[in-house]
């Protein structure tokens, strides 16, 4: 806990939380270090970072890129990223965005999502409006995300399911030739791997 002044209201949530933790520690049900570990692990490890590592590797290693597009599950495993919720290995399919085709991922039935790569889905991904509209009018939905696509670019909507999870390999922005893999991974954000945004040129 912190050393700032604590409230004197026993019903204040910070007091309730502290009381609960001290009681559980006393009963031998909880070790505060284990609670710290859960928080740290969550902050460090869960999130869109794993997907960004995959993208940065594909941008810098053409052979890896080919393997990733051929078999996403196996290529993710090469980077020690495996499994999804439940531990079972759903098939991961990685689709590449380019000057002619733009892929965007949805799960029209529920909220299937490549957790192991992208962490938890954003709230809008579960929203019925996104799930139905992105199929019917993808261009308008992408424009609402701030992504105006040239009319010549074909849009492919990829519908994830319990068996197949899609992830987008975004285009590497121009002006990033001098960046190494770690720096590139830092540019890649969640929305680009769902396909509702581009990875931006860091100089732009």
């Amino acid at each position: 806990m912190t050393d700032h002044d604590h409230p004197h209201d026993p019903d204040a949530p910070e007091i309730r939380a502290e009381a609960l933790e001290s009681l559980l520690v006393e009963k031998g049900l909880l070790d505060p270090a284990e609670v710290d570990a859960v928080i740290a692990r969550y902050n460090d490890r869960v999130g869109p970072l794993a997907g960004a590592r995959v993208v940065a590797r594909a941008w810098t290693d053409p052979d890896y890129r080919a393997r990733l597009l051929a078999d996403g599950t196996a290529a993710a495993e090469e980077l020690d990223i495996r499994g999804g919720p439940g531990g079972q290995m759903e098939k991961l399919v990685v689709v590449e965005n380019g000057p002619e085709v733009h892929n965007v991922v949805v799960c029209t039935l529920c909220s299937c999502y490549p957790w192991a790569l992208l962490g938890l889905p954003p709230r809008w991904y579960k929203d019925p409006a996104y799930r139905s509209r992105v199929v019917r009018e993808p261009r308008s939905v992408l424009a609402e995300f701030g992504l105006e696509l040239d009319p010549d670019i074909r849009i492919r909507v990829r519908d994830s399911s319990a068996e197949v999870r899609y992830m987008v390999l975004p285009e590497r922005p121009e002006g990033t030739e001098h960046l190494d893999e770690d720096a590139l991974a830092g540019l890649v954000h969640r929305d680009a791997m769902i396909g509702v945004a581009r990875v931006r040129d860091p100089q732009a």
Partner: protein
Amino acid sequence: MSTEERLQQRLAATGDAAPPMENGELLFAEPWEARAFGMAHRLCDAGCFEWDAFRDHLIAAIAAEDARRADDAPYRYYEHWLVALERTLADHGLAGDAELGARARQLAARPHGHDH
């Protein structure tokens, strides 16, 4: 299954009651929120309760507030999380309301500036 996967699976199963997030990262407004989050996961890992039991209480707590909350009132997600955790532990006979209340009153009575 790794711990990360278990966390993700549980949070995914929490559905509409899932915690507030920004770009896939959890948002904790205050340190006690992270403690409450960590405690629930750790106790579930240790087999103290099934995640579903906690989730049901969380959904009920959120629904109860949604029914009475003004639209512009701040949304206090982790207060519901904490209430759900207390109810789950009470259900399982692990920590009762009375002993918890007594401990909270004890802590609240500490003098100001106490370093804890």
